């Protein structure tokens, strides 16, 4: 599967190279001159070396320092590779910081939020795009207007609201719902999904309803199978958003009880009182799932960044 995927990307890239005139800032002719070739080689090598140092370098230390002893980690000058090779650091850090629990918490919050977002945001976008209820446009406008409100600004009233839900008087602090439910109020998801659903011709929906399909069936059997690319983009971004969030889980979960902390928060609070090498080992373990996720879904992530819209 993976192999076919890479083959097909490569084929696509080659195809694009052939079909479009790949003229960029510097022409191919200039690059083919002897002097151009030399300059290009030098720049290419330089860029590769500098980028590898700048972006892989810190991560190299993240994983090698995790293998060093406490004394070696804080030694000056630093050692370039672990002299005291100690993989036991990982298991010590795992049990001492309870990385497994933090990992489970984070995954639980992230996938729960993803499930709720997919159910409610897809249903809402479908309704706004294809069913078009009265006041639908007002609702859409109000939803999109929240894109203009910076998230961190609302942290206090949101916290107060979650601590005492209006009408119901539930206190959600410390429960996973405190992360799940607010994540549904994501105007960017609604925008992406609705725009994609709008591009599906009404004929498909009409034909299905002539055949007696219910609205739910139309969504499930027709709209969703056609919308896989956008569902992938929305899913990836919503997972990453919850996984990377810091302030909100710090307030509503860690603030309630430290055992509910996410990876991000747990790593931060372990800064005090945990030896450097164990902290770095825990930090490295926290980074592994996201790095793996990125390497697997790289193509979708990059496509989402550029095609799905712009969000820094």
């Amino acid at each position, binding site marked *: 599967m993976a192999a076919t995927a890479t083959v097909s990307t490569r084929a696509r890239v080659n195809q694009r190279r052939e079909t479009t005139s790949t003229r*960029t*800032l510097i*022409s191919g002719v200039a*690059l083919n001159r002897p002097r151009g070739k030399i300059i290009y080689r030098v*720049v*290419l090598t330089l860029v590769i070396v500098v980028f590898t140092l*700048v*972006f*892989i370098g*810190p*991560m190299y230390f*993240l994983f090698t*320092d995790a293998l060093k002893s406490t004394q070696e980690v804080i030694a*000056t*000058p*630093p050692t370039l590779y672990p002299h005291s090779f100690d993989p036991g650091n990982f298991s010590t850090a795992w049990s001492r910081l309870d990385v497994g629990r933090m990992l489970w918490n984070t995954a639980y919050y992230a996938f729960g939020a993803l499930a709720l977002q997919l159910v*409610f*945001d897809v*249903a*809402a976008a479908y*309704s*706004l795009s294809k*069913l*078009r209820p*009265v006041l*639908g446009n007002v609702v859409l406008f109000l*939803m999109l207007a*929240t894109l203009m409100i*910076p998230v*961190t600004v*609302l942290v*206090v*009233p*949101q916290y*107060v*609201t979650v601590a005492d839900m*209006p009408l119901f008087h539930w206190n959600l602090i410390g429960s996973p719902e405190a992360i799940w439910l607010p994540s549904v*109020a994501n105007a960017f998801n609604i925008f992406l999904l609705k725009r994609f659903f709008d591009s599906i011709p009404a004929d498909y*929906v*009409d034909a299905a*309803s*002539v*055949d007696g399909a219910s*609205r739910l069936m139309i969504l499930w059997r027709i709209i969703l199978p056609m919308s896989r690319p956008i569902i992938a983009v929305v899913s990836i971004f919503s997972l*990453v958003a919850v996984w990377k969030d*810091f*302030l909100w889980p710090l*307030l509503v979960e860690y603030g309630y009880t430290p055992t509910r902390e996410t990876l991000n*928060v747990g790593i*931060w609070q372990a*800064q005090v009182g945990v030896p450097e090498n164990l*902290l770095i080992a825990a*930090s490295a373990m*926290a*980074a592994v799932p996201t790095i793996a*996720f*990125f390497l697997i879904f790289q193509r979708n*992530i990059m496509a989402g960044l*550029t095609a799905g819209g*712009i969000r820094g």
Partner: protein
Amino acid sequence: MANVLTSVARSAAAPPAARRRRPASLLPRVRRNAAAWAFLIGAVLCFSFFSWYPIVREVIMSFQKPVYGGGYTWAGWSNYIRIFHDPTFWQAWRNTLEFTVLALVLGYAVPFVVAIVLNELRHAQGYLRTLVYLPVMLPPASALLLFVYFYNPQYGLFDDVLHFLHLPVSQWVFQPGTGFVSTAMLSVVIASTWMNMGSATLIYLAALQNIPGELYEAAELEGAGLFRRIRHVTIPQTRLILILLLMLQVVATMQMFIESFVLTNGGGGVGDNTLSVVMLIYQYAFAMSGASNYNSASALGVVLLLVLAVFSGGFLWATRERG
């Protein structure tokens, strides 16, 4: 049922004239709307509770004060007056502006230059793209902790490098001093740029790949050199994305929180020299044990909201398409 559905589907797509000719009767219309709202209601409730209501509530809370024994009462402008008299308030704004300006110099220009260079390379582009975006995927606490360790004045890697080069060593994030370009804030910006530049780079790269090659061809035939081609082709062709990302970046950097929070372990640096506005909101609301006050935090939130709204509005007005 199928009949109703087809008429619904048709009336949704039909032009108004057709709809007027055959008015749907009341019952199907009610049914159609009820069904549509059933799909919509979950998201609407979540938006109401966690987005729309908090926006209104923030403004209300900023004009209230807590009453002994529970509840709130009106307080007029007293929360605003109090935060305006807090010296930390002005310090936090100054720091936030410093961060925003430095982040513009580094975090805005660097990704664009990097994207231009990457777009010219015929080899290893995929590898380099992956590299630039990799830090964006790290959990921010992991990435920043790495910098905590690099910046450490006793055994940090950066000081070792400076020492090796016979340059004066630095306290980095914990360097005292609040000059407009303070070492402490510069350290925060470096970590932040490393962490975040990937997404901007990839967005620019996509924009660069959409520039028609003929434009460069024509410019070269007219005798335009490399820098004039960048100035007169690349920048005008990517103008829209440059403007949009500039605005989004300023709005994002004005809300800086985690970078300074993790690097200084929640402290805000020596003499609060890296304390940001959002960190101050956090401190007002949650960190001052005993005297925690949501109301002054809300007032500060409203001020930040107004500043960002005025900035975005003014920016969009100033860069609107003329003619």
